[in-house]
């Protein structure tokens, strides 16, 4: 069964040997001439601006976390939607109740200013 993967392994070894060989060759033949320009960040040929480690406002995490929470709750809806017809009215009511409880939480977030992250 593992034999199927043998070509993959061979390919992997070849790639590594090739890359490793090239690197070794350049290190051996080439000469290192360090210059300040070379050490700079390559940004598509433009002069780099700002720092790569730019920061988001920490308040943004709230929006991100709330997004994730409501996003994963959709999983339950997908499960219901796949079998909505078979589950019928009782399924619809149950999903409605689920959404109602979720809506209470959402209202609370909204009223407490959880969605105004730029303040």
């Amino acid at each position, binding site marked *: 069964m593992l034999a199927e993967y043998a070509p993959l392994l061979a390919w992997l070894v070849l790639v590594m040997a090739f890359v490793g060989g090239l690197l070794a060759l350049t290190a051996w033949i080439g000469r290192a001439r360090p210059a300040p320009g070379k050490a700079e960040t390559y940004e598509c040929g433009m002069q780099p601006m700002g720092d790569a480690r730019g920061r988001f406002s920490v308040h943004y995490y709230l929006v991100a976390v709330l997004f994730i929470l409501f996003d994963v709750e959709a999983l339950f809806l997908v499960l219901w939607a796949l079998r909505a017809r078979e589950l019928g009215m009782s399924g619809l009511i149950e999903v409605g109740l689920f959404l109602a409880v979720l809506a209470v939480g959402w*209202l609370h977030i909204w009223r407490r200013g959880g969605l105004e992250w730029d303040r």
Partner: protein
Amino acid sequence: MPLSYGEALQYLLPEVAVTLGLCVVLCWEIFVKGRRAWDASVLSIGFLAVAAVLLVQRLDYAPATVFGMVTVDRFATVFKLFITSATVIVLLFDLQDRRALQDGRGETCFLLLTAVLGSYFLVGTTHLLLLYLGLETLGLSSYVLAGMHKRSRASAEAALKYVVYGALASGILLFGASLLYGMTGTLDLRLMAVPIEQAIREGRTAQIALPTLLILVGFGFKLSLVPFQWWAPDVYQGVTTPIATFLAVGSKGVAMAAFLRYLSSAYATVLVQPGQEPSPYLASLGGTLALVSAATMIFGNLAALRQDNLKRLLAYSSIAHAGYILMGVALLSEDGFNAATLYTFVYYFMNLGAFGMVIYFANQTGREDIQSLQGLGARHPVAGVSTVVFLASLTGLPPTAGFAGKWLLIKVAWEGGLHWLALLTALLSVVSLFYYFRIAKALFLTEPARDVPPVRSPALSGLLGLLALASIAFLHFDPLLQVAEQGVRVLFWG
């Protein structure tokens, strides 16, 4: 025979009441203008009272499994009442605590109700998915409760430790559960009993022992058993006292109930029957639990000896008591489980009282160390005398329920062959006298340090008095024992 939809809902009405309650409390918090500081608490107590009434009506229902997951039987209902009443008392404590957060009380109430809902499912299921969901609902709301005090460093640190260790515990438990699912092909603990028995008989014990060990680690964290206890003192010390009460009494009680149900369901076919030798596998499981029990009570009692902070002292004392309770569990027999359940009930009264005492005296002095109690006993006779009763009960001295509970534990341990553990318990009870007595000594046998006018809170001292009376009344513990026995019988015989 499957229940009809209406019948099923009938069984779940207490859960419905609590769910409705938490939605109403949260809506009240955001929509009602001109609120008072206490109205969310009163609203929550109202909903919990409704749930309690519904639960009492359900005490005599025939055991049933609702929607294939929720087990409603006497054991579950008794522990649901346990957590409901404990939460009501915690809410009352919160109202009486002068250092409690006044803003955000609605959210505290909401989180407490969520924790109660999680506990309902935790104690009332043999299905590993629902067990995990209940544990997490209880856990997640407790983590937030621990961190409610947003500007306090101690509270932030407590919440952090609690969330990391709590999440780790439930993660390990879940990993164990997933392995158990693979070995047995089901998530229902009762259906697991047969494959587990088969595996043990065929000598494939490693397949069962590994997941069991992981699940034990998970429960060990939740019950703060050695060697998974280090978070407890920091957490109890850092959070507000009412929340510490909830964690020490409520969370620990229902986690113990879930642990008993896990053991009695997954090993239903092999548990020790009267007059029968345990199988080697069961003997090693019981032996492990007995060792953990011994380590836990030794650690808790010795560490409590050198504490000055009352909450930290009570945290170590509650670790020690988890060790005592585990001694009954380690017997893996009906008698042992009875004694463990009974001691959990006794633990409820004396620890609610002890934490209430901390709130009462912190209201007077603004501090929570032993020295701050100096001479306060004479000025506050009701609270002072009640405190002595709680301390006597925690030590296990005769005129109190603590004595009765501990005596039963020692008796069944002796009869069950754990002689060394029974002797150790008796010995450590003497040790515990030293640190409990320090509190009583500070209250009554020292001169008051300075003259502060007492802050009268008749409601809180009344509550403490009632708890103290209960602690004495249940020395004659037939009613409590009956409740425990009837509950545990369901676990063993269905």
